[in-house]
């Protein structure tokens, strides 16, 4: 077991390094560079010589291998450098942008899980087939609505028309209501689909019939099973969705005017702000490997059935 854990940690570090390197290559291959974008901007109105001076000061034209080495060493030392575009240390940007994104993501997941369980139950309780069908097609509907459109509609309706929540200068909880709802909808969809299927399967199992015959309430039975069955898929999805979540967050953040990693990434890509992007990649990759590691190690504990399989698959 210890060897397995050490091996997995080694793999995780390898993935981290590969993500760093791949993104470095990707960013270097882009046309133009951050200094060009920043200083050739007409707002500065600098002459060719002045731009050349600045390029020399930032050493953007130095050997790419040297640049890679420098960046890697600095990162290993925990020095993320400065954002050229924003003019602040990357660590300061991360400090202001990471917590809101984590909060949004965490609550988004929670809300998504609750929503999914709710839908799954509603569908199992529905007395008519047509109603059940309608409820069961909700998840499909959820994933077919563009997130930015949903966000804008939610604001228009709840903030501007009915004035229920404020988007500008909201209270700490008020500020999260609409963004969390926006984020939860697309994540809830696949979860709900899995749960609906699970409930359906459980119903056909003999023990349900037995329990029912003994007078147990079917609803209570389902609750217990669904609760247990909801944990695993949620965890699994949490493991893979982190990277995707940033993409989802950028939309929510842009529309709701929140600060966060998503918006930071989008701006940095546009300006080719290398140090910011490298930091984002490393953090997101670190989160990814950590969550996956945790999920992998926790899986057998949560589901005894998987104990043997885990050994076999690993």
């Amino acid at each position, binding site marked *: 077991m210890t060897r397995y854990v050490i091996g997995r940690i080694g793999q995780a570090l390898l993935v981290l390094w590969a993500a760093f390197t791949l993104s470095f290559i990707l960013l270097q291959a*882009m*046309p*133009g*560079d951050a200094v*060009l*974008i920043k*200083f*050739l*901007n*007409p*707002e*500065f*109105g*600098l*002459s*060719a010589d*002045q*731009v050349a*001076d*600045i390029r020399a*000061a*930032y050493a953007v034209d130095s050997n790419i291998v040297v640049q890679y080495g420098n960046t890697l060493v600095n990162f290993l030392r925990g020095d993320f450098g*400065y*954002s*050229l*575009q*924003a*003019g*602040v*240390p990357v660590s*300061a*940007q991360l400090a*202001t*942008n990471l917590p809101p994104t984590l909060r949004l993501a965490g609550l988004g997941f929670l809300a998504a899980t609750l929503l999914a369980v709710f839908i799954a139950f509603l569908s199992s309780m529905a007395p008519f087939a047509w109603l059940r069908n309608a409820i069961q097609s909700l998840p499909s509907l959820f994933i077919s609505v563009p997130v930015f459109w949903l966000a*804008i509609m939610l*604001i*228009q309706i709840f*903030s*501007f028309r009915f*004035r229920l929540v*404020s*988007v*500008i*200068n909201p209270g700490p909880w008020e500020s999260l209501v609409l963004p969390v709802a926006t984020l939860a909808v697309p994540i809830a969809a696949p979860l709900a689909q899995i749960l609906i299927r699970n409930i359906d399967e459980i119903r056909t199992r003999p023990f349900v019939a037995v329990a029912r015959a003994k007078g147990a309430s079917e609803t209570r039975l389902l609750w217990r099973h669904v609760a247990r069955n909801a944990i695993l898929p949620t965890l699994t999805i949490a493991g893979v969705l982190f990277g995707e979540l940033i993409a989802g967050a950028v939309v929510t953040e*842009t*529309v*709701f*005017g*929140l*600060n966060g990693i998503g*918006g*930071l990434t989008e*701006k940095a*890509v*546009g*300006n*080719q702000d290398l140090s910011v992007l490298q930091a984002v990649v490393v953090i997101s990759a670190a989160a990814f490997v950590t969550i996956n590691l945790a999920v992998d190690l926790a899986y057998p504990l949560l589901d005894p059935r998987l104990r043997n399989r885990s050994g076999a698959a690993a």
Partner: protein
Amino acid sequence: MTRYRTLIAFSLGLLATTTFATAGLAADAPAKGGTLVYLEQQAHTNLYPPAGGFYPNGGVLNQVTDKLTYQNPKTLEIEPWLATSWTVNDNATEYTFKLRPGVTFSDGTPVDAATVAKNFDTFGLGNKPLKQPVSEVVNNYDHSEVIDPLTVKFTFKKPSPGFLQGTSVIGSGIVSLSTLALPFEQLGDATKIIGSGPFVVKAETIGKSLDLTVREDYNWGPAKLEHQGRAYLDGINYIVTAEDSVRIGALLAGQADFIRQIQAYDEGQVEAQSFTIYAPGTRGVNNSIVFRPDNPLVSDIKVRKALSLAVNRDEILSTIFSKNYPKATSIIASTAIGYVAQEDKLGYDPEKAEALLDEAGFKLGADGIRAKDGQKLILTSYESLPQPQSRAVLQLIAQQWSKLGVKLNVLAGDAGSKVVDELDPLKTPVAVAMVGRADPDVVKSQYYPTNRNLLLQKGGVSDKVKTFSDDRLNAILDEIASQPDREKRLKAVADAQAYVLDQAYAVPIFEEPQAFAGAPYVKGVAFEAVGRPAFYSTWLDK
């Protein structure tokens, strides 16, 4: 060198308030207090003062820093501010400023001759170890000299007649020594920008919001302004809200007081609720498209003339814009210094355009696109994100040109590709141009090869240009920049306008405003010449 002739126009609001006051409407006397919630479209970037040209930056720096001089937005005269008086020698190589006593930065340090000297040493020469670039406002700078604690003298290598006005722009905002001691990479943190202005940065969430608070002891506004003493507002709360519909919705729903960037199509719903649209002009080069004659497709003046004649300005304005967007009548705005109407050179005549293209040898092909010697007349331009509805304008021009058999590809691109491609005349024979500035120099900086080099002449930043260079144009531009005699200088500005249009280098479309919207109770909002807001005299009537 380009200069932002940025000036602080408190006059708008002041005029309004003083008129009312003299009419005896005591209810309209400015009230102190309140915080203005201001929604910005973009986050500010680096706040090194010479970077104040970027609108979000200027919007912040304008409230936080003071300048040596103040350019009256009505008369465009230079008036005292931090400098009470000044002298200039005859050939404009030596400037001596007397400073106002008792002025302090928000950290308590004095605004004295040494500090001002250090500011202009940095802006004029740059600071390589700290990576602070040169300001485009300060040209031919040599050195400074502290005569006494309140007298500072600047010396220039060559005549620099534009320097006096250059001291009045946002890019010449005076900051404390502690700010100038920071490396360029750290100047994006607004809390580190220590100025002597009417507001002080209290707190910032980088990329999201910024809190300014009033300086109670502020008592050194521009000397000739009606309003003296501290600003009326207690503070300003900047919030970055990128989404257009959210900014407008929030304003109309009462969640915000003032917003920047409102598109023409949204003006109706704002005015319908009796909110105010502010569309201050930018007094510079009009929103235009320019040609890069180094590209063989547009090297023939007949082709350029034809394309210019085929642009229907009225159609563009009536389809996309509103009354706040005046039609262009020259390459510079009608409110710009040295403007001369050129309407006779800016007609719309599709028949003549077709005849010119025929003459130039571009014949209609079977696919409906004109070609000459197998070269199809297919042009390309990038949209310009900061310009209002640039994408729509270009699409409409493409539509108008397509009737002649000319195809215009409109590209949306990332910043990197755009910067690189815009240096290559073969890739971008057409470009969108606009710059806000209240000085004749604007024309020179726009076209001169070693400045912005919009036409991509040989000798500029681009190494992709093969031959194109227009000595006659450059001679006129040189005259604008170096002629100390005002009348002769204005004559050169007139010549440049006529010449650029005679050569059909540029197709001006409209005079670009900066559009803002405010709640009805927001009074006394003022704008400097290129449309950046100044909230010194702003107050809330609620």
